[in-house]
């Protein structure tokens, strides 16, 4: 069965390649820092499943120190000039889109098709990880198609990957780090403390106040945790079920559906949701790492207001 480990090995090899290309760039003053940073990340993919947790933890702290104290520097310059790229764009035309669109197409085909593929009755691909494995496969297929079409030098993909990865820099690791922080928050019981505080300090004896507290609480808690899934059980057990449903007789399905989406409004407004907000800012080479968040805040706030009104007018109307 093909599982995540095969994907992790490929990812580790790519990161190791990026580390080596960086080392070979003698004009780059920070090349040793980059070697260590991308190299350690590569190790956690190649050996992560076999390393003791404490060793991985130390490696991760090493990465953090190298990037925050040593610094990774900026992105290397473009490898082709604007004129070269324009000429190539004219030469290849819309065929350039084919490999790019193969990525979503193959991901989609894999996600829906792998469950039917079995070898001797066992699934060929781990059914719990179909999406991630399909995405990884899609990148390989798209790369093969691109290389076949463009007849580019063999080293070209890894050099270009290094250019993009260095442009993103340490932000590439942030989503994974935040997921780890979420796990520590859960171990230490941060959620329980927050819901106790809310219950103690906010007067919750009017239905509208309760709805506002629940929806705004979902958004704020999501802003802190970076993830509406972490906020939902805490806020719903603390405020939603005892007050909106039990005390005021609201409909639990409407409350939960709109409550979760109120949390998503918070996701739009927080750097803690790094993969949605900080990573694209780095990927699009915005000078302000909060540039995407600032664009999303007006929509997030207005939609949160809309959610509060929707929940207030719907949740008590359609009683179970």
């Amino acid at each position: 069965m093909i599982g995540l480990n095969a994907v992790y090995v490929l990812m580790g090899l790519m990161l190791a390649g990026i580390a080596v290309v960086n080392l070979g760039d003698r004009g780059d003053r920070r090349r040793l820092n980059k070697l260590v940073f991308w190299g350690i990340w590569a190790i956690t993919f190649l050996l992560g499943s076999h390393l003791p947790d404490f060793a991985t933890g130390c490696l991760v702290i090493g990465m953090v120190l190298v990037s925050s104290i040593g610094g990774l520097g900026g992105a290397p310059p473009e490898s082709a000039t604007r004129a070269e790229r324009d000429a190539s764009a004219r030469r290849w035309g819309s065929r350039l889109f084919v490999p790019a669109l193969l990525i979503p197409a193959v991901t989609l085909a894999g996600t829906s098709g792998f469950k039917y593929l079995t070898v001797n009755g066992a699934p060929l691909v781990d059914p719990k990880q179909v999406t991630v494995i399909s995405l990884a496969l899609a990148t390989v297929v798209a790369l093969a198609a691109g290389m076949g079409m463009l007849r580019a030098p063999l080293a070209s993909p890894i050099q270009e990957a290094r250019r993009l990865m260095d442009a993103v820099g340490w932000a590439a690791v942030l989503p994974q780090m935040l997921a780890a922080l979420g796990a520590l928050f859960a171990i230490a019981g941060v959620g329980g403390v927050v819901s106790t505080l809310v219950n103690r300090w906010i007067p919750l004896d009017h239905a509208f106040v309760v709805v506002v507290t629940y929806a705004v609480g979902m958004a704020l808690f999501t802003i802190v945790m970076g993830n509406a899934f972490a906020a939902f059980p805490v806020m719903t057990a603390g405020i939603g079920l005892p007050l909106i449903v039990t005390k005021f007789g609201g409909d639990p399905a409407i409350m939960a559906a709109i409550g979760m989406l109120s949390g998503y409004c918070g996701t739009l407004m927080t750097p803690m949701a790094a993969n949605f907000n900080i990573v694209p800012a780095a990927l699009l080479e915005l000078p302000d790492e909060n540039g995407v968040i600032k664009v999303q805040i007006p929509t997030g706030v207005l939609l949160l207001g809309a959610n509060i009104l929707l929940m207030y007018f719907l949740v008590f109307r359609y009683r179970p």
Partner: protein
Amino acid sequence: MLTLLGVLVVIVGFALRFNALLVVTVAGIVTGLAGGLSLHDVIAAFGKAFTENRYVAIIWMVLPVIGLLERNGLKERAREMMSRVHAATTGRVLMVYMALRQITAALGLTALGGHAQMVRPLLAPMAEGAAESRFGELSDRTRFRIRAHAAAVDNIGVFFGEDIFIAIGSILLIKGFLAQNGIDVAATTLAKWAVPTALCATAIHFVRLLLLDRSLERQARAAALLSDCPTDPLSDSPAVRRSDGPTVEPEGPGAAGP
């Protein structure tokens, strides 16, 4: 109460713009220690969670092929294509993408999109290309502002579309959580009640994108006026610079309309 120290570290650290990796690591260690773990156990817990969440990073595997295509002119092609569609404006390009993203997510196809595989190589150059063909060369600030909007429509489209699909993670989480508390709801009921918010999201953000188009146009006209009379003392006025900013959103509060 001590448990919340880590949250405080996060808020202060992000507000003061310290390196986010460092902030998150310190917050994690502080939270773990405040929660009664030994330093060794905190580091091990961090390592364990880091290893378990490696799948989050798999998206970076698109970089070799995206980089290869970019080197061979993918972005230039995407930009150039938009310049030939006369009806295309930045706002309209982003609206079409957001609608497609929302609809496909509502059908469970959340994989059709994303910042690394769609926004950087295709959507952002198209949105920039649409503005370039109308207003000529763009300033860096305008360019960055358009890119930020391109990233935003991908997020908003998928967030407020996916919950209409019954087998998405969040619907399953809600269903499971309510079941634990003795309340049985059908996934289809939950999905149905995600529709009103989805429609509000579309309405609110489409109005903002219309206002983005207007603001880009105003800005281009102001820039054209300034370049006509280069000695104009207003050429460096803060008002112009503000309306030019990639991150400041002059149209924001005005979007309260509908």
